[in-house]
């Protein structure tokens, strides 16, 4: 099936716009973005796993979760819901955190809009990043970390071998 996927960046405004279509009705897609048990099944790019420690989906509520690497390393992040219009839109502030829920800087603002047309649901996401450093970390965490880790492992292995 051909599902729309659009990704555009306004570098000057430090904003990323994403549009994605899903072959499911609105209430199911809404649940997939707002319920921890479904979120954990898909948000982490493989081989990472998402682990939600708690999620309180209401205005002012928070989701505290970790991306867990295959060797068990945890990268914590905290999300704070700033606005919710059920099955239409929600907004949150997202920041990396330590394991004790202390947010790290800088964070980003996420805005999700949902609409349904003939059985398909379109999700529009706007991400505003305060700094590039944050964007860099966001990407590093999900994508290059796995690669870097395997390189580190190789390095350690070579060091160990050369000492013998």
């Amino acid at each position, binding site marked *: 099936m051909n599902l729309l996927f659009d990704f555009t960046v306004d570098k000057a405004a430090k904003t990323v716009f994403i549009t994605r279509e899903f072959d499911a009705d609105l209430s199911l897609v809404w649940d997939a973005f707002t319920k921890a048990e479904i979120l954990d099944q898909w948000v982490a790019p493989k081989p990472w796993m998402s682990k939600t420690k708690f999620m309180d989906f209401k205005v002012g509520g928070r989701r505290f979760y970790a991306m867990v690497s295959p060797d068990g390393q945890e990268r914590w992040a905290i999300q*704070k*819901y700033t606005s919710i219009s059920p099955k239409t839109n929600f907004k949150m502030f997202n920041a990396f955190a330590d394991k004790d829920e202390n947010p790290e800087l800088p964070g980003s603002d996420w805005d999700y809009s949902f609409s349904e047309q003939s059985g398909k649901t379109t999700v529009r996401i706007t991400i505003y*990043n305060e700094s590039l*450093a944050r964007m860099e970390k966001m990407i590093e965490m999900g994508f290059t970390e796995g690669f870097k880790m395997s390189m580190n492992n190789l390095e350690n292995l070579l060091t160990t071998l050369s000492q013998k």
Partner: protein
Amino acid sequence: MKQNHRTNSPSKKICEADRLHVYLRNRSASYLPFMRRDIFQAIADPTRRAILVLVAMQAMTPNAIAEHFDITRQSISRHLRILSECDLLAQKQEGREIFYELKIDKMKEIDTWLDQFRKIMEESFKQLDEVLYTIKNKKK
């Protein structure tokens, strides 16, 4: 969204989310003097974007760059300094003159990062497609 937190006035009732935001912004401010400049800050300014376009064509002296703009030499120097601090411009000495040239690798870095982020999102959404498919079939 961008405007929302730029226009936070003290008179507004500050909700908890805002408070977190203010806390984070203050923390950020205290780190600023020690941080390398943000590359997005460099390209957020229209004059600096125009400078980048100019020097992308050929290395130029500050005077030659200034001729293209209706602003003081002092402002041009400030823009050049910011761009250099972001590692977007390199200086090279030729005789008595200093030329500024674009460090193209740094510009490519931004695109590489963004492209990787696009891939992450694309990958997660494909996983979501499968999850949605599974849930729908269970319901039937």
